């Protein structure tokens, strides 16, 4: 039996991961005629037409801006409310703590399809329909529990002596929390923010249900193009390729913490 070198499996796996992405990228540089004309591995008539269209048409590029706005709002809200809660769970025992923690996690298990219609009615009733804040708040449903879970894991790894020393030195709770504790778990906050960003960025069903024009996410713009104006595959591929960029950017920044974060800080 021939022994395969150790890099063989990861390489094969990465090639498998890259193939569909390559298909998307190469299609985004083709003209519609070439796409419909048949298969070609490399673009024959290399064109940037699809990208030009996206960057000059406000209905397209506003989609990206809308998505980024609600994703950032959501990440900020999730992290800022999850920080104190995670601290409470990691340091204190209180009435119903375990039940509360599990209840939080159950919201991570709720299928978005179940909540789509009620969410629409709820946010229409409080006049937030089609605003960025509505989507940001709705995504809190699954992002806050996740952020609490991850941060709690990281915080439990920090010895309690740190808190006790600070209190002995006369720090008040909030001054200790903001000046000492938060900087100590900066890596954990980075990882939690990464996950909030990720889940808010990739979610479509709720974002689509809660918006119509002003806050329409890019993902929803794409679906509509695909169905109404014929099948403009090149344009669709270009729009899809552009959605890879924020993700790739974020991964690059957290690459050193990524593996640890995926283990939710609890390994």
């Amino acid at each position, binding site marked *: 039996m021939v022994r395969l070198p*150790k*890099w063989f*499996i990861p390489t094969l*796996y990465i090639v498998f*991961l*890259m193939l*569909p*992405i390559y*298909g*998307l990228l190469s299609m985004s540089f083709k003209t519609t005629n070439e*796409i*419909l004309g*048949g*298969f070609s591995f490399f673009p024959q008539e290399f064109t940037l037409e699809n990208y030009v269209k996206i960057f000059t048409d406000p209905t397209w590029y506003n989609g990206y801006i809308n998505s980024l706005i609600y994703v950032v709002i959501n990440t900020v809200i999730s992290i800022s*409310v999850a920080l*104190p*809660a995670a601290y*409470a*769970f990691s*340091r*204190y*025992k*209180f*009435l119903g*703590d375990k039940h*509360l923690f*599990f209840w*939080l*996690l159950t*919201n991570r*298990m*709720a*299928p*978005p*399809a*179940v909540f*789509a*219609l*009620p*969410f629409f009615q*709820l946010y229409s009733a409080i006049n937030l329909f089609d605003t960025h804040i509505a989507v940001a*708040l709705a995504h*809190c449903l699954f992002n806050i529990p996740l952020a609490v879970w991850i941060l709690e894991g990281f915080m439990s790894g920090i010895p309690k002596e740190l808190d006790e020393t600070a209190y002995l030195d006369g720090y008040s709770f909030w001054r200790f929390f903001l000046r000492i504790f938060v900087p100590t778990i900066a890596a954990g906050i980075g990882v939690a923010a990464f996950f909030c960003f*990720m889940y808010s*960025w990739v979610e*479509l069903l709720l974002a689509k249900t809660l918006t119509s024009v002003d806050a329409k996410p890019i*993902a929803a713009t794409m679906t509509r193009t695909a169905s109404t104006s014929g099948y403009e*595959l090149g344009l669709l591929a270009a729009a*899809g390729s552009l959605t890879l960029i924020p*993700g*790739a950017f974020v*991964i*690059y920044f957290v690459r*050193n913490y*990524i593996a640890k974060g*995926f*283990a*939710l800080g*609890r*390994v």
Partner: protein
Amino acid sequence: MNKTVNQKAWWLVTPVLVLVAFNAFIPLMTVVNYSLQETFGNNEFFWEGVTWFEQVLKSERFHASFLRQLLFTGMILVIEVPLGICVALTMPRKGPWVSVCLILMALPLLIPWNVVGAMWNIFALPDIGLLGYTLNSMGFDYNFTQQPVSAWMTTVVMDVWHWTSLVVLLCYAGLCSIPDDYYQAARIDGASPWAVFRYIQLPKLKRVLTIAILLRFMDSFMIYTEPFVLTGGGPGNTTTFLSIDLVKIALGQFDLGPAAAMSLIYFLIVLLICWAFYTIMMRNEEQ
């Protein structure tokens, strides 16, 4: 860690509680409301009791999509977990290639779900797509918009493509936490690679694997966007999973009563299985 009892900690939890409760309780009660009543529009409601629940539990349509969902989740777990472990074991531990591997592998996780669907749709188109064209020119009869088997295969492979990296990254994190001494001891004892895996690596992976399986179970059970964009639930109903069916009933046919009853049953099933998992996980941790 020994925790101090402090009831004031509730104040720290309050913001989270308020926000999540606002998003969870009100919509959930709306769903409960709908599930027990009949409406003919105009905001007029009539008490129906558990009729909808009986109807959903007895309907063949629900059974069929539930079975498809179970089959799908089972298939992707059987493929993704061993594949993920395998890739994690062979990944480099040190050097510049670690970052490259991590970044490339995490990429699919950060692609919006409908783009994943659209990407695979383009990739698998029989005449134009890379995969579809290659398979057809190799002599396979492949058309995912018409053949149920092809549609299923494409959906499963898409999910494997999309989510195996999560298992890989989790296992990788688990493997990195094993001290080098363990391996040295194994080398001195002359342990075979299989023995190293079975008695050193696998026990260490138990915790992360539980998390991985739990996350993959939850997410695949709730899958909606990717198969919806890829196949639209077709051909026929062959790839209509629970969420797709639910949205069809609720927003397509506007049968709010049955849809709400189905939502609750669906949520309860996910909850029940996850609760069982969570309990087992916590019990293992205490040991």
